[in-house]
């Protein structure tokens, strides 16, 4: 089924990227309000103010009952919260803080992931949820041990929670969309004898 259009929906939820969009769609589905909320992903938090400024046109502000923003707290929940609150205040005239909705129409609110006090992101919540299940205790230790081993070998993750979830999913979910982008980003080199046969085959095309 096609997602609802901006015009059809009573509210807008803004997320950072496509992964977040899918997770929020699932949460909204579980709440029974997926058809009422248009989810706009911003392709990353960079240039957040300009993106929100374009999205939140006077017609959108006049026609929607609620506008919510969910972003990663990253390394500084306080700084991220201040920045998002100031952006929303300047664009909507509403004073907002983490987890709360302003009064009026539209109601405006934002939520920092995982929360207003902890550095992290959506994956932090996902890891908390999965690793705290008693039946996953042994598997969670394996994942932690794997990352510990990588760190000992001098390969530390930029985000530990993303790495934990990535390692966990590498076993639980076979379809990994990161390989292509990782190769393109030169995280994995193709200039190796292992690729010689494939390279020779492709060169005839």
């Amino acid at each position, binding site marked *: 089924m096609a997602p609802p259009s901006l015009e059809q929906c009573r509210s807008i939820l803004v997320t950072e990227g496509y992964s977040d969009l899918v997770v929020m769609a699932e949460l909204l589905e579980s709440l029974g309000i997926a058809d009422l909320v248009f989810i706009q992903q911003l392709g*990353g938090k960079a*240039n957040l103010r*300009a993106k929100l400024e*374009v999205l939140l046109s006077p017609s959108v502000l*006049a026609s929607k009952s609620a506008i919510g923003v969910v972003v990663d707290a990253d390394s500084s929940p306080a700084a991220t919260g201040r920045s998002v609150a100031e952006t929303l205040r300047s664009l909507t005239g509403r004073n907002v803080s983490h987890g709360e909705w302003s009064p009026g129409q539209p109601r405006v609110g934002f939520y920092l992931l995982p929360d207003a006090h902890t550095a992290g992101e959506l994956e932090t919540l996902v890891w908390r949820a999965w690793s705290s299940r008693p039946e996953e205790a042994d598997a969670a230790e394996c994942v932690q041990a794997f990352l510990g081993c990588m760190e000992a070998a001098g390969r530390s993750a930029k985000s530990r929670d993303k790495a934990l979830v990535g390692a966990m999913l590498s076993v639980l979910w076979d379809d990994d969309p990161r390989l292509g982008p990782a190769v393109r980003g030169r995280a994995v080199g193709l200039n190796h004898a292992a690729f010689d046969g494939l390279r020779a085959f492709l060169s005839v095309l």
Partner: protein
Amino acid sequence: MYESLEVQDYRGFDLLRLDDLGLVNLIVGPNNSGKTALLEVLAWLTMPGAAPMLLDTLRGDKGMRWVARAATGQTVARLRGVLRGGENREVAIGAEPGLRAPVGSGVGALSLADVQAVYRPADGAARAVAISGQARSEGSIAGQFAAAVRAPSSEASIEDLLRSVDSRVRSLRIDLTGTEPFISVDLGMPERLPLSQAGQGMVRLVSILTALLGPKPDVCLLDEIENGIHYSALQTLWEGLAEIAERLGVQVFATTHSAECLAAAHRAFAERDTYGLRVVQLYLVNGTAGGRTLARDQIEALIEAEIEVR
């Protein structure tokens, strides 16, 4: 060149203020948000004496009776444009007795069957050309081309501009099959080809170029610029338009419904030394049309996040 516009009580606009206009302005918005009406506003401000003809080209109907917002004939639409350097252009349009007779020097007047217009300045020094989005026959474009290249310098300009978009272009000529004239192009091949075989973007570009080089306008009004053009040809069209606008000093206002068109325009301008593109976003708030101007960082944001503004 217009730097700002103010539109009061014109068609669906209650009060619209647009600042920071660019050399090329792409007007986007949903249906009935006033895209063509904004082109009309520019026709009135730029060339009030010829506005009825320009409106006819853009809208294809007379429609003069309904230009002022309330169809009662009592409301007067007021338009104002501020040009670079501070010159003001003002037009008031309406029906008597709502519109007073012009007073003082430097005021022009236009009297039509349904409405009156008074405008300042009266000399009509600026020129506008309107180009509809409707597909035109090859014969019609050929006739316009023939008129445009009567001045040899215009012929050289057209070929030079086209070469800046497609380096294979050597020259254009009028050719004939039966009684139907058409434009043929020398692309360095053994025979000249019909222009249509050089691509839809090139045909549209020649159509626009010839419309500009003949009258040499200050303002070009292009309705539904992407009409009849495959999305893959939009980049060619915009690269050419950007070059034309800069070289001829023509301020362009174009409407579109196409996200691909907007993205192609941004790419074309992002490659130039000066980013002369603005997006004029029109929208409806409780049935009343409004709008704002988006600059480069906002245009990049809406393209990157794929935000719907049409």
